């Protein structure tokens, strides 16, 4: 959960966390970027200074880094939360999403959408990570149903026994599909592996 509080000026300020509150999943600010703690290790010589050795993911870049804190130090929390949002459309520069409850819209840039762009189909629900209200990560649904816009029509030609052919989908993604899949058909794809799962039933 977010730990926003209101300061005397009436502005939202994030709570800060002491190293004793560190645990996997905690969102903190580090060098100006929102980060998520992956691992936290308490290191202390019997007769000496205690440290927290932390493995952190920078949520903007996705990079994993290490960082050592003095135990007892405090770190600013990051106003980060994940929410289900509906993908509306892209104008080429931004991808637009809507909160289905509030109908509020947000726009995500290329950096936030990144590799997910090729799985985004209008109306699909996505998991959007918001930092200070702006999207920084967009995760497509685990499975998407997309139309095949181009693939080799032939059933023959697969003499290698590899059991498949490339197919370009309506979103631009290219996946390997079985030979029987034809242009115009809808298929189900696992977005985590980028692999064909099955033919999708027509609605």
């Amino acid at each position, binding site marked *: 959960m977010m730990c926003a509080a209101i300061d005397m000026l009436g502005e939202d300020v994030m709570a800060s966390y002491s190293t*004793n509150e560190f645990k996997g999943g905690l969102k903190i600010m580090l060098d100006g970027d929102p980060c998520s703690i992956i691992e936290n*290790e*308490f*290191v*202390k*010589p*019997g*007769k*000496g*200074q*205690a*440290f927290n*050795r932390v493995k952190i993911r920078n949520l903007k870049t996705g990079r994993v*880094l*290490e*960082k*050592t*804190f*003095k*135990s007892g*130090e405090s770190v600013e929390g990051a106003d980060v939360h994940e929410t289900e949002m509906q993908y509306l459309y892209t104008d080429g520069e931004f991808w637009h999403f809507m909160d289905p409850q509030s109908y509020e819209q947000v726009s995500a840039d290329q950096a936030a959408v990144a590799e997910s762009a090729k799985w985004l189909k209008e109306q699909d629900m996505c998991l959007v990570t918001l930092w200070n209200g702006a999207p920084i990560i967009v995760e497509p649904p685990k499975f998407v149903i997309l139309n095949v816009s181009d693939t080799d029509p032939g059933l023959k030609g697969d003499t290698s026994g590899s059991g498949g052919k490339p197919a370009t989908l309506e979103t631009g993604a290219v996946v390997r599909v079985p030979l029987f899949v034809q242009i115009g058909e809808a298929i189900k794809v696992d977005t985590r592996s980028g692999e064909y799962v099955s033919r999708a039933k027509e609605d």
Partner: protein
Amino acid sequence: MTASDEWRPSAAVETIRARAEMLARIRQFFKRIGVLEVETPICSRYATTDPALESFSTRYTGPGAARGRDLYLHTSPEFAMKRLLAAGSGAIYQICKVFRNGEYGPRHNPEFSLLEWYRPGLDYHQLMDEVAQLVNTLTKQPMSVERLSYAELFEDYLDLNPHLATGDQLRQCAISQGVAGAEQLAIEDRDGWLDLLMSHLIEPRLGQGGMTFVYDYPASQAALARIREEPTPVAERFELYMEGIEIANGFQELTGAEEQHRRFEDDNHRRRQSHQTAVPMDQNLLAALTAGLPDCSGVALGLDRLLMVLTGVADIRQVVTFDISRA
């Protein structure tokens, strides 16, 4: 961990058996060499002043203390055992639970088992030999033993003199050696930087497949060890490392009451400076030292960590029946 399996032990049954076997062999070892097993109180009206240690406290109310009296849980049985030594006990050992607030992680549980022993007439180098002998009675095969002074260690691994380097030089070393976040660490004293370098860069490489003893610590890290003045003052203190884990800490014991009193005062002064609470210093220990503590060496050995090494596990939770999250 879900609520439904919280009742289960965090250690496997084989490990619980291995602990019983380890304890039995330790008692045999001390019986053979003629060291007496003792028990001392866990609760004391006095606490350890060491700024690196936080005592738990509790309260006794009843006969003798109608309005209640604060008691501290010991962080080691050192003070009471030294009172026994001053009273003429001769060589003694103790196996007990000790308590340290604020310490929890893969190598720390706030309550843990300590083996502590004192040897009048042995110096700390002879005591290192004895620690190695004891460990070798617990391992399947005798292990190699390496001994390095704290200065040699820092020269070998980091190319600097830990007794003479300035705080800034130590900081620069941490940065150039790639300790992540070293630039932003607000460490005020040299010892904090030495602890950082030791715990992040050196410790993980010590005692790989054997025992590494490190001895002659900076005088500023003497704790209750005697300080030898020449040529650079060093604390006659040692630590044992196995598989990158700190296992034991030993001293050529400080015997002077005045010096002990001064260190207690210094500790409390440092506690106040770093916004820790000052704690009552052990007047009974000071009185015992005034009466006369025989020249002796002493060592405290973490039994849970030793059991981790003996059973080859990486997390202390796997060697205690119920760690604090299940206690």
